Protein backbone atom coordinates (compact mmCIF):
# COMPACT_ATOMS: atom_id res chain seq x y z
CA UNK A 1 0.00 0.00 0.00
CA UNK A 2 1.17 3.56 -0.58
CA UNK A 3 2.22 5.22 2.65
CA UNK A 4 -1.06 6.91 3.49
CA UNK A 5 -2.18 8.11 6.89
CA UNK A 6 -4.94 6.29 8.74
CA UNK A 7 -7.32 9.13 7.97
CA UNK A 8 -6.65 8.87 4.24
CA UNK A 9 -7.18 5.13 4.38
CA UNK A 10 -10.42 5.60 6.27
CA UNK A 11 -11.79 8.05 3.69
CA UNK A 12 -10.55 5.91 0.84
CA UNK A 13 -12.16 2.81 2.30
CA UNK A 14 -15.45 4.49 3.19
CA UNK A 15 -15.73 7.61 1.12
CA UNK A 16 -18.55 9.93 2.28
CA UNK A 17 -21.06 11.74 0.09
CA UNK A 18 -20.40 9.96 -3.18
CA UNK A 19 -22.83 10.78 -5.92
CA UNK A 20 -24.25 13.48 -8.10
CA UNK A 21 -26.96 15.87 -6.96
CA UNK A 22 -29.84 15.95 -9.36
CA UNK A 23 -30.55 19.49 -10.51
CA UNK A 24 -27.56 20.88 -8.62
CA UNK A 25 -27.10 24.56 -7.83
CA UNK A 26 -23.50 24.40 -8.93
CA UNK A 27 -21.16 22.01 -10.74
CA UNK A 28 -17.36 22.02 -10.63
CA UNK A 29 -15.16 19.72 -12.65
CA UNK A 30 -11.36 19.65 -12.50
CA UNK A 31 -8.56 17.46 -13.81
CA UNK A 32 -8.80 14.93 -16.57
CA UNK A 33 -8.16 11.21 -16.82
CA UNK A 34 -4.96 11.73 -18.79
CA UNK A 35 -3.32 13.23 -15.72
CA UNK A 36 -4.66 10.46 -13.57
CA UNK A 37 -7.22 12.39 -11.56
CA UNK A 38 -10.61 13.91 -12.29
CA UNK A 39 -13.28 15.18 -9.90
CA UNK A 40 -16.77 16.41 -10.38
CA UNK A 41 -18.45 18.19 -7.47
CA UNK A 42 -22.15 19.07 -7.36
CA UNK A 43 -23.60 21.28 -4.65
CA UNK A 44 -26.99 22.25 -3.30
CA UNK A 45 -27.15 25.69 -1.68
CA UNK A 46 -29.79 26.83 0.78
CA UNK A 47 -29.71 30.11 2.73
CA UNK A 48 -26.18 30.73 1.58
CA UNK A 49 -25.12 27.41 3.05
CA UNK A 50 -23.91 24.23 1.32
CA UNK A 51 -26.83 22.05 2.18
CA UNK A 52 -25.46 19.17 0.20
CA UNK A 53 -22.13 18.34 -1.45
CA UNK A 54 -21.58 15.31 -3.63
CA UNK A 55 -18.83 14.21 -5.98
CA UNK A 56 -17.61 11.65 -8.44
CA UNK A 57 -13.90 10.97 -8.53
CA UNK A 58 -11.67 9.14 -10.95
CA UNK A 59 -8.27 8.86 -9.38
CA UNK A 60 -5.87 7.36 -6.91
CA UNK A 61 -6.38 6.66 -3.24
CA UNK A 62 -5.39 10.17 -2.28
CA UNK A 63 -7.75 11.74 -4.80
CA UNK A 64 -10.67 9.72 -3.48
CA UNK A 65 -9.85 10.51 0.14
CA UNK A 66 -9.41 14.20 -0.69
CA UNK A 67 -12.79 14.47 -2.37
CA UNK A 68 -14.45 12.71 0.52
CA UNK A 69 -12.72 14.96 3.04
CA UNK A 70 -13.58 18.12 1.11
CA UNK A 71 -17.21 17.11 0.89
CA UNK A 72 -17.32 16.61 4.66
CA UNK A 73 -15.52 19.85 5.40
CA UNK A 74 -17.75 21.85 3.07
CA UNK A 75 -21.13 20.45 3.98
CA UNK A 76 -23.09 22.87 6.13
CA UNK A 77 -20.60 25.71 5.73
CA UNK A 78 -21.58 29.11 4.35
CA UNK A 79 -20.47 29.88 0.83
CA UNK A 80 -17.87 32.27 2.21
CA UNK A 81 -16.44 29.79 4.67
CA UNK A 82 -16.41 27.00 2.06
CA UNK A 83 -14.40 29.25 -0.25
CA UNK A 84 -11.86 29.64 2.54
CA UNK A 85 -11.11 25.91 2.61
CA UNK A 86 -7.55 25.65 1.38
CA UNK A 87 -5.67 22.76 -0.12
CA UNK A 88 -3.34 22.86 2.85
CA UNK A 89 -6.22 22.48 5.28
CA UNK A 90 -7.53 19.47 3.38
CA UNK A 91 -4.15 17.77 3.50
CA UNK A 92 -3.84 18.59 7.20
CA UNK A 93 -7.28 17.23 8.01
CA UNK A 94 -6.23 14.02 6.29
CA UNK A 95 -3.21 13.71 8.53
CA UNK A 96 -0.88 14.66 5.70
CA UNK A 97 -0.30 13.25 2.25
CA UNK A 98 2.85 11.71 0.77
CA UNK A 99 4.91 14.34 -1.03
CA UNK A 100 4.20 12.97 -4.47
CA UNK A 101 0.46 13.03 -3.78
CA UNK A 102 0.16 16.63 -2.58
CA UNK A 103 -1.16 17.68 -5.99
CA UNK A 104 -4.28 15.59 -5.35
CA UNK A 105 -5.19 17.75 -2.39
CA UNK A 106 -5.27 20.72 -4.72
CA UNK A 107 -7.88 19.16 -6.93
CA UNK A 108 -10.43 18.72 -4.16
CA UNK A 109 -10.66 22.31 -2.97
CA UNK A 110 -10.40 23.53 -6.57
CA UNK A 111 -13.35 21.43 -7.67
CA UNK A 112 -15.44 22.60 -4.74
CA UNK A 113 -14.57 26.24 -5.38
CA UNK A 114 -15.40 25.81 -9.04
CA UNK A 115 -18.81 24.46 -8.13
CA UNK A 116 -19.38 27.47 -5.88
CA UNK A 117 -18.24 29.85 -8.63
CA UNK A 118 -20.65 28.08 -10.96
CA UNK A 119 -23.43 28.61 -8.43
CA UNK A 120 -22.55 32.29 -8.14
CA UNK A 121 -22.52 32.71 -11.92
CA UNK A 122 -25.92 31.11 -12.13
CA UNK A 123 -27.22 33.41 -9.37
CA UNK A 124 -26.04 36.40 -11.40
CA UNK A 125 -27.79 35.15 -14.51
CA UNK A 126 -30.98 34.46 -12.61
CA UNK A 127 -30.79 37.83 -10.84
Amino acid at each position, binding site marked *: *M*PEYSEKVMEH*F*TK*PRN*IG*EIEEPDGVG*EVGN*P*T*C*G*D*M*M*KFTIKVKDNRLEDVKY*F*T*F*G*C*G*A*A*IAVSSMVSEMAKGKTIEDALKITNKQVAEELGGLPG*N*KMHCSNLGADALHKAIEDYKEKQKVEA
Partner: protein
Amino acid sequence: MKAINLDYTAAAPLDQEVIQAMLPYFIEHYGNPSSGHSLGEKPRKAIDEAREKVARLIGAQAKEIIFTATASEANNLAIKGLIAGGRKKGNHIIASSIEHFSVLNQLKTLQKEGFEVTLLPVDRYGIVDPDQLASAITEQTILISIQTANPEIGTIQPIEELAALARENEIPFHTDAAAAAGWIPIDVEKTGVDLLSLAGDQFYGPKGSAALFVRRGTRMRPLIEGGIQEKGLRAGTENVPALVGMGEAARLAYDSIEERPKKIADLRDQLKESLFNEIPHLHLNGHPEQRLPRNLNISVEFVEGEALLMRLDMAGIYVSSGSSCTSQALKSSHVLSAIGVSAELAQGSLLLTLDKDSSADDITYITGQLAQVAELLRNMSPLYHQFMKEGNKNARV
Protein backbone atom coordinates in the same frame (compact mmCIF):
# COMPACT_ATOMS: atom_id res chain seq x y z
CA MET B 1 -7.78 -13.42 4.85
CA LYS B 2 -6.67 -14.74 1.51
CA ALA B 3 -3.31 -13.58 0.18
CA ILE B 4 -2.90 -14.03 -3.52
CA ASN B 5 0.10 -12.53 -5.21
CA LEU B 6 -0.45 -11.61 -8.83
CA ASP B 7 2.69 -9.51 -9.03
CA TYR B 8 5.34 -12.17 -9.33
CA THR B 9 7.25 -10.09 -11.80
CA ALA B 10 8.06 -7.68 -8.97
CA ALA B 11 9.33 -10.47 -6.74
CA ALA B 12 8.86 -14.15 -6.06
CA PRO B 13 9.75 -16.36 -3.14
CA LEU B 14 12.75 -18.59 -3.62
CA ASP B 15 12.20 -22.18 -4.52
CA GLN B 16 13.05 -24.47 -1.61
CA GLU B 17 15.73 -26.12 -3.74
CA VAL B 18 17.24 -22.72 -4.39
CA ILE B 19 17.51 -21.60 -0.78
CA GLN B 20 18.80 -25.04 0.23
CA ALA B 21 21.50 -24.79 -2.41
CA MET B 22 22.51 -21.36 -1.13
CA LEU B 23 22.58 -21.97 2.61
CA PRO B 24 25.93 -23.82 2.84
CA TYR B 25 27.71 -20.84 1.30
CA PHE B 26 26.88 -18.32 4.02
CA ILE B 27 28.69 -19.97 6.89
CA GLU B 28 30.11 -23.36 6.07
CA HIS B 29 31.74 -22.64 2.70
CA TYR B 30 32.09 -18.92 3.20
CA GLY B 31 35.43 -18.59 1.38
CA ASN B 32 36.35 -16.20 -1.37
CA PRO B 33 36.54 -17.87 -4.80
CA SER B 34 39.68 -15.86 -5.57
CA SER B 35 41.59 -17.19 -2.57
CA GLY B 36 44.70 -19.22 -3.32
CA HIS B 37 44.15 -21.52 -0.33
CA SER B 38 41.72 -24.35 0.28
CA LEU B 39 38.90 -22.15 1.59
CA GLY B 40 38.51 -20.78 -1.92
CA GLU B 41 37.98 -24.15 -3.55
CA LYS B 42 34.37 -25.01 -2.73
CA PRO B 43 33.08 -21.53 -3.52
CA ARG B 44 35.11 -21.45 -6.74
CA LYS B 45 33.69 -24.76 -7.89
CA ALA B 46 30.23 -23.67 -6.84
CA ILE B 47 30.24 -20.58 -9.02
CA ASP B 48 31.81 -22.50 -11.88
CA GLU B 49 28.87 -24.88 -11.70
CA ALA B 50 26.40 -22.04 -11.44
CA ARG B 51 27.97 -20.53 -14.53
CA GLU B 52 27.50 -23.82 -16.39
CA LYS B 53 23.86 -23.97 -15.42
CA VAL B 54 23.10 -20.40 -16.36
CA ALA B 55 24.92 -20.87 -19.66
CA ARG B 56 22.88 -23.96 -20.43
CA LEU B 57 19.61 -22.12 -19.84
CA ILE B 58 20.39 -19.83 -22.77
CA GLY B 59 22.48 -22.14 -24.94
CA ALA B 60 25.75 -20.35 -24.18
CA GLN B 61 29.18 -21.49 -23.08
CA ALA B 62 30.09 -21.03 -19.42
CA LYS B 63 32.94 -18.68 -20.26
CA GLU B 64 30.48 -16.36 -21.98
CA ILE B 65 28.59 -15.68 -18.75
CA ILE B 66 29.49 -12.57 -16.77
CA PHE B 67 27.72 -12.47 -13.42
CA THR B 68 26.30 -9.16 -12.21
CA ALA B 69 24.04 -8.19 -9.30
CA THR B 70 20.97 -7.06 -11.24
CA ALA B 71 19.54 -7.05 -14.74
CA SER B 72 19.90 -3.28 -14.65
CA GLU B 73 23.62 -3.72 -14.12
CA ALA B 74 23.76 -6.30 -16.93
CA ASN B 75 22.01 -3.84 -19.26
CA ASN B 76 24.37 -1.05 -18.27
CA LEU B 77 27.40 -3.27 -18.74
CA ALA B 78 26.06 -4.39 -22.12
CA ILE B 79 25.56 -0.93 -23.54
CA LYS B 80 28.25 1.13 -21.83
CA GLY B 81 30.72 -1.73 -21.90
CA LEU B 82 30.25 -2.34 -25.59
CA ILE B 83 30.54 1.32 -26.49
CA ALA B 84 33.67 1.70 -24.36
CA GLY B 85 35.04 -1.48 -25.95
CA GLY B 86 34.82 0.51 -29.13
CA ARG B 87 35.47 -2.06 -31.80
CA LYS B 88 32.94 -0.53 -34.16
CA LYS B 89 33.09 3.17 -34.94
CA GLY B 90 29.94 5.22 -35.23
CA ASN B 91 27.51 7.18 -33.12
CA HIS B 92 24.13 5.61 -33.80
CA ILE B 93 22.21 3.26 -31.52
CA ILE B 94 18.88 1.58 -32.19
CA ALA B 95 16.49 0.28 -29.54
CA SER B 96 12.79 -0.32 -29.24
CA SER B 97 10.60 2.28 -27.60
CA ILE B 98 9.39 -0.25 -25.01
CA GLU B 99 12.73 -1.15 -23.46
CA HIS B 100 13.16 -1.20 -19.70
CA PHE B 101 14.34 2.05 -18.11
CA SER B 102 17.74 0.48 -17.50
CA VAL B 103 18.15 0.60 -21.27
CA LEU B 104 16.19 3.74 -22.10
CA ASN B 105 17.74 5.96 -19.46
CA GLN B 106 21.22 5.09 -20.62
CA LEU B 107 20.26 6.02 -24.15
CA LYS B 108 19.02 9.38 -22.93
CA THR B 109 22.39 10.02 -21.34
CA LEU B 110 24.19 8.90 -24.48
CA GLN B 111 22.04 11.27 -26.52
CA LYS B 112 23.21 14.13 -24.34
CA GLU B 113 26.77 13.01 -24.99
CA GLY B 114 26.23 13.28 -28.72
CA PHE B 115 25.01 9.85 -29.77
CA GLU B 116 22.10 9.50 -32.17
CA VAL B 117 19.40 7.23 -30.84
CA THR B 118 16.56 5.71 -32.83
CA LEU B 119 13.74 4.28 -30.75
CA LEU B 120 11.76 1.99 -33.00
CA PRO B 121 7.99 2.15 -32.71
CA VAL B 122 6.03 -1.03 -32.00
CA ASP B 123 2.68 -2.13 -33.33
CA ARG B 124 -0.50 -2.21 -31.24
CA TYR B 125 0.61 -5.52 -29.74
CA GLY B 126 4.07 -4.31 -28.91
CA ILE B 127 5.97 -5.98 -31.72
CA VAL B 128 8.98 -4.44 -33.46
CA ASP B 129 8.73 -4.64 -37.24
CA PRO B 130 11.93 -6.11 -38.73
CA ASP B 131 11.46 -3.94 -41.82
CA GLN B 132 11.51 -0.86 -39.65
CA LEU B 133 14.68 -2.07 -38.00
CA ALA B 134 16.23 -2.70 -41.42
CA SER B 135 15.50 0.82 -42.59
CA ALA B 136 16.72 2.38 -39.34
CA ILE B 137 20.20 0.85 -39.71
CA THR B 138 22.86 3.24 -40.97
CA GLU B 139 26.59 3.12 -41.56
CA GLN B 140 26.92 4.74 -38.17
CA THR B 141 24.97 2.13 -36.22
CA ILE B 142 27.14 0.55 -33.53
CA LEU B 143 24.57 -1.21 -31.38
CA ILE B 144 21.03 -2.55 -31.54
CA SER B 145 19.26 -3.34 -28.28
CA ILE B 146 15.85 -4.97 -28.39
CA GLN B 147 14.33 -6.83 -25.49
CA THR B 148 13.38 -10.49 -25.81
CA ALA B 149 10.06 -9.92 -24.07
CA ASN B 150 8.39 -7.05 -22.30
CA PRO B 151 7.84 -7.47 -18.56
CA GLU B 152 4.71 -5.34 -18.55
CA ILE B 153 2.63 -6.38 -21.56
CA GLY B 154 4.41 -9.71 -22.01
CA THR B 155 4.95 -9.34 -25.74
CA ILE B 156 7.70 -11.54 -27.18
CA GLN B 157 9.79 -10.10 -30.01
CA PRO B 158 10.87 -11.94 -33.16
CA ILE B 159 14.46 -11.86 -31.89
CA GLU B 160 15.87 -14.32 -34.40
CA GLU B 161 14.73 -12.18 -37.30
CA LEU B 162 15.87 -8.94 -35.67
CA ALA B 163 19.25 -10.32 -34.68
CA ALA B 164 19.78 -11.68 -38.19
CA LEU B 165 19.47 -8.15 -39.56
CA ALA B 166 22.08 -6.97 -37.10
CA ARG B 167 24.37 -9.78 -38.07
CA GLU B 168 24.02 -9.10 -41.81
CA ASN B 169 25.10 -5.56 -41.10
CA GLU B 170 27.82 -6.62 -38.64
CA ILE B 171 26.27 -4.65 -35.81
CA PRO B 172 26.44 -6.00 -32.25
CA PHE B 173 22.99 -7.01 -31.02
CA HIS B 174 21.97 -6.89 -27.36
CA THR B 175 18.75 -8.31 -26.02
CA ASP B 176 17.38 -7.71 -22.55
CA ALA B 177 15.96 -11.13 -21.70
CA ALA B 178 15.40 -10.39 -18.02
CA ALA B 179 11.66 -10.98 -18.30
CA ALA B 180 11.98 -13.90 -20.70
CA ALA B 181 14.81 -16.11 -19.48
CA GLY B 182 13.53 -19.14 -17.63
CA TRP B 183 10.10 -18.75 -19.21
CA ILE B 184 10.62 -19.30 -22.90
CA PRO B 185 13.34 -21.35 -24.58
CA ILE B 186 16.35 -19.20 -25.38
CA ASP B 187 19.27 -20.22 -27.55
CA VAL B 188 21.92 -17.61 -28.19
CA GLU B 189 23.54 -19.80 -30.82
CA LYS B 190 20.33 -20.07 -32.79
CA THR B 191 19.37 -16.41 -32.52
CA GLY B 192 22.94 -15.22 -32.89
CA VAL B 193 22.65 -12.38 -30.39
CA ASP B 194 25.94 -10.97 -29.09
CA LEU B 195 24.83 -9.81 -25.67
CA LEU B 196 21.93 -10.99 -23.53
CA SER B 197 20.88 -9.86 -20.04
CA LEU B 198 19.08 -12.12 -17.61
CA ALA B 199 18.04 -11.97 -13.97
CA GLY B 200 17.96 -14.83 -11.48
CA ASP B 201 15.15 -13.32 -9.44
CA GLN B 202 12.84 -13.48 -12.44
CA PHE B 203 12.84 -17.28 -12.35
CA TYR B 204 12.72 -18.02 -8.62
CA GLY B 205 16.39 -17.33 -8.03
CA PRO B 206 17.57 -14.84 -5.41
CA LYS B 207 17.69 -11.08 -5.61
CA GLY B 208 21.21 -9.90 -6.31
CA SER B 209 21.79 -12.49 -9.03
CA ALA B 210 21.91 -11.64 -12.70
CA ALA B 211 24.18 -12.12 -15.67
CA LEU B 212 25.23 -10.81 -19.02
CA PHE B 213 25.98 -13.22 -21.83
CA VAL B 214 28.90 -11.83 -23.82
CA ARG B 215 29.59 -13.74 -27.01
CA ARG B 216 33.24 -14.86 -27.16
CA GLY B 217 35.24 -12.35 -29.15
CA THR B 218 33.04 -9.37 -28.27
CA ARG B 219 35.27 -6.50 -27.19
CA MET B 220 34.02 -4.99 -23.95
CA ARG B 221 35.18 -2.74 -21.16
CA PRO B 222 34.05 -3.22 -17.56
CA LEU B 223 31.51 -0.90 -15.96
CA ILE B 224 32.92 -1.69 -12.53
CA GLU B 225 36.71 -1.61 -12.77
CA GLY B 226 39.07 -3.17 -10.24
CA GLY B 227 39.99 -6.79 -9.70
CA ILE B 228 39.95 -9.36 -12.46
CA GLN B 229 36.89 -11.29 -11.36
CA GLU B 230 34.51 -12.25 -14.19
CA LYS B 231 37.32 -12.11 -16.74
CA GLY B 232 38.00 -8.50 -15.82
CA LEU B 233 34.53 -7.42 -16.94
CA ARG B 234 33.03 -7.01 -13.48
CA ALA B 235 35.26 -6.36 -10.50
CA GLY B 236 34.26 -7.18 -6.96
CA THR B 237 34.03 -10.17 -4.68
CA GLU B 238 31.61 -12.68 -6.12
CA ASN B 239 28.31 -13.06 -4.26
CA VAL B 240 28.69 -16.81 -3.96
CA PRO B 241 25.36 -17.73 -2.33
CA ALA B 242 23.38 -15.59 -4.77
CA LEU B 243 25.15 -17.03 -7.80
CA VAL B 244 24.73 -20.57 -6.52
CA GLY B 245 21.04 -19.80 -6.08
CA MET B 246 20.80 -18.44 -9.60
CA GLY B 247 22.49 -21.56 -10.91
CA GLU B 248 20.04 -23.82 -9.12
CA ALA B 249 17.09 -21.73 -10.30
CA ALA B 250 18.45 -21.91 -13.85
CA ARG B 251 18.70 -25.65 -13.58
CA LEU B 252 15.10 -25.93 -12.37
CA ALA B 253 13.90 -23.59 -15.10
CA TYR B 254 15.81 -25.46 -17.77
CA ASP B 255 14.55 -28.84 -16.64
CA SER B 256 10.94 -27.66 -16.74
CA ILE B 257 11.11 -25.22 -19.63
CA GLU B 258 8.19 -27.03 -21.27
CA GLU B 259 5.90 -27.91 -18.38
CA ARG B 260 6.15 -25.10 -15.88
CA PRO B 261 5.47 -22.22 -18.29
CA LYS B 262 2.70 -24.22 -19.96
CA LYS B 263 0.93 -24.89 -16.69
CA ILE B 264 1.09 -21.22 -15.74
CA ALA B 265 0.00 -20.08 -19.18
CA ASP B 266 -3.05 -22.33 -18.96
CA LEU B 267 -4.01 -20.76 -15.64
CA ARG B 268 -3.35 -17.33 -17.07
CA ASP B 269 -5.69 -18.09 -19.97
CA GLN B 270 -8.34 -19.27 -17.57
CA LEU B 271 -7.97 -16.11 -15.52
CA LYS B 272 -8.28 -14.00 -18.63
CA GLU B 273 -11.41 -15.80 -19.77
CA SER B 274 -12.95 -15.62 -16.36
CA LEU B 275 -12.28 -11.88 -16.01
CA PHE B 276 -13.51 -11.00 -19.49
CA ASN B 277 -16.64 -13.11 -18.98
CA GLU B 278 -17.57 -11.59 -15.66
CA ILE B 279 -16.49 -7.97 -15.93
CA PRO B 280 -17.60 -5.58 -18.64
CA HIS B 281 -15.37 -2.95 -20.23
CA LEU B 282 -12.03 -4.72 -19.89
CA HIS B 283 -9.30 -4.41 -22.50
CA LEU B 284 -6.37 -6.73 -23.14
CA ASN B 285 -2.97 -5.08 -23.47
CA GLY B 286 -0.20 -6.76 -25.41
CA HIS B 287 -0.16 -9.59 -27.89
CA PRO B 288 -2.93 -12.20 -27.71
CA GLU B 289 -0.52 -15.09 -28.35
CA GLN B 290 3.10 -13.96 -28.56
CA ARG B 291 3.35 -13.28 -24.86
CA LEU B 292 5.11 -14.47 -21.73
CA PRO B 293 3.34 -17.43 -20.14
CA ARG B 294 2.78 -15.85 -16.78
CA ASN B 295 1.77 -12.41 -17.99
CA LEU B 296 -1.69 -10.86 -18.24
CA ASN B 297 -2.21 -7.15 -18.70
CA ILE B 298 -5.65 -5.59 -18.81
CA SER B 299 -7.18 -2.16 -18.57
CA VAL B 300 -10.25 -1.67 -16.43
CA GLU B 301 -12.07 1.14 -18.14
CA PHE B 302 -13.29 4.22 -16.21
CA VAL B 303 -11.17 3.67 -13.12
CA GLU B 304 -7.67 4.43 -11.98
CA GLY B 305 -5.02 1.83 -11.20
CA GLU B 306 -3.84 2.86 -7.76
CA ALA B 307 -7.36 2.79 -6.40
CA LEU B 308 -7.85 -0.64 -7.93
CA LEU B 309 -4.57 -1.79 -6.48
CA MET B 310 -5.48 -0.54 -3.00
CA ARG B 311 -8.94 -2.09 -3.04
CA LEU B 312 -7.57 -5.40 -4.25
CA ASP B 313 -4.85 -5.21 -1.63
CA MET B 314 -7.57 -4.92 1.03
CA ALA B 315 -8.95 -8.17 -0.36
CA GLY B 316 -5.51 -9.80 -0.17
CA ILE B 317 -4.79 -9.61 -3.88
CA TYR B 318 -1.53 -8.02 -4.93
CA VAL B 319 -1.15 -6.55 -8.39
CA SER B 320 0.63 -3.69 -10.08
CA SER B 321 -0.47 -1.04 -12.50
CA GLY B 322 0.98 1.11 -15.25
CA SER B 323 -0.92 4.14 -13.96
CA SER B 324 0.96 7.34 -13.24
CA CYS B 325 -0.18 7.30 -9.61
CA THR B 326 1.46 3.97 -8.92
CA SER B 327 4.72 4.93 -10.53
CA GLN B 328 7.27 6.54 -8.28
CA ALA B 329 8.15 8.93 -11.07
CA LEU B 330 4.43 9.74 -11.49
CA LYS B 331 4.45 8.89 -15.17
CA SER B 332 2.12 6.41 -16.71
CA SER B 333 3.58 3.48 -18.58
CA HIS B 334 5.68 4.33 -21.62
CA VAL B 335 4.98 0.82 -22.85
CA LEU B 336 1.21 1.21 -22.88
CA SER B 337 1.58 4.57 -24.55
CA ALA B 338 3.87 3.04 -27.21
CA ILE B 339 1.25 0.44 -28.13
CA GLY B 340 -1.36 3.17 -28.46
CA VAL B 341 -3.34 2.58 -25.28
CA SER B 342 -5.12 5.84 -24.45
CA ALA B 343 -3.95 7.76 -21.42
CA GLU B 344 -7.23 7.01 -19.69
CA LEU B 345 -6.99 3.28 -20.26
CA ALA B 346 -3.37 3.31 -19.19
CA GLN B 347 -4.50 4.76 -15.84
CA GLY B 348 -6.74 1.77 -15.34
CA SER B 349 -4.20 -0.83 -16.38
CA LEU B 350 -3.41 -3.86 -14.25
CA LEU B 351 -0.44 -6.14 -14.63
CA LEU B 352 -1.20 -9.62 -13.37
CA THR B 353 1.66 -12.12 -13.23
CA LEU B 354 0.91 -15.64 -12.13
CA ASP B 355 3.05 -18.20 -10.44
CA LYS B 356 3.56 -21.93 -10.52
CA ASP B 357 1.57 -22.11 -7.30
CA SER B 358 -1.38 -20.10 -8.56
CA SER B 359 -4.53 -22.21 -8.54
CA ALA B 360 -7.91 -22.44 -10.20
CA ASP B 361 -9.53 -21.48 -6.88
CA ASP B 362 -7.51 -18.29 -6.89
CA ILE B 363 -9.04 -17.45 -10.23
CA THR B 364 -12.57 -17.62 -8.91
CA TYR B 365 -11.66 -15.47 -5.95
CA ILE B 366 -9.79 -12.93 -8.03
CA THR B 367 -12.60 -12.64 -10.53
CA GLY B 368 -15.19 -12.08 -7.84
CA GLN B 369 -13.09 -9.47 -6.07
CA LEU B 370 -12.10 -7.57 -9.16
CA ALA B 371 -15.71 -7.52 -10.31
CA GLN B 372 -16.77 -5.98 -6.99
CA VAL B 373 -13.93 -3.50 -6.85
CA ALA B 374 -14.42 -2.39 -10.43
CA GLU B 375 -18.13 -1.84 -9.81
CA LEU B 376 -17.49 0.09 -6.62
CA LEU B 377 -14.92 2.39 -8.22
CA ARG B 378 -16.92 2.81 -11.39
CA ASN B 379 -19.89 3.87 -9.33
CA MET B 380 -17.86 6.80 -8.07
CA SER B 381 -16.23 7.56 -11.41
CA PRO B 382 -17.39 10.62 -13.35
CA LEU B 383 -16.18 8.93 -16.53
CA TYR B 384 -18.37 5.92 -15.95
CA HIS B 385 -21.46 7.98 -15.27
CA GLN B 386 -20.77 10.10 -18.33
CA PHE B 387 -20.39 6.94 -20.42
CA MET B 388 -23.62 5.50 -19.05
CA LYS B 389 -25.53 8.66 -19.87
CA GLU B 390 -24.03 8.93 -23.33
CA GLY B 391 -24.40 5.21 -23.87
CA ASN B 392 -28.06 5.54 -22.96
CA LYS B 393 -28.42 8.55 -25.19
CA ASN B 394 -26.78 6.68 -28.03
CA ALA B 395 -29.04 3.76 -27.35
CA ARG B 396 -32.06 6.06 -27.52
CA VAL B 397 -31.01 7.56 -30.87
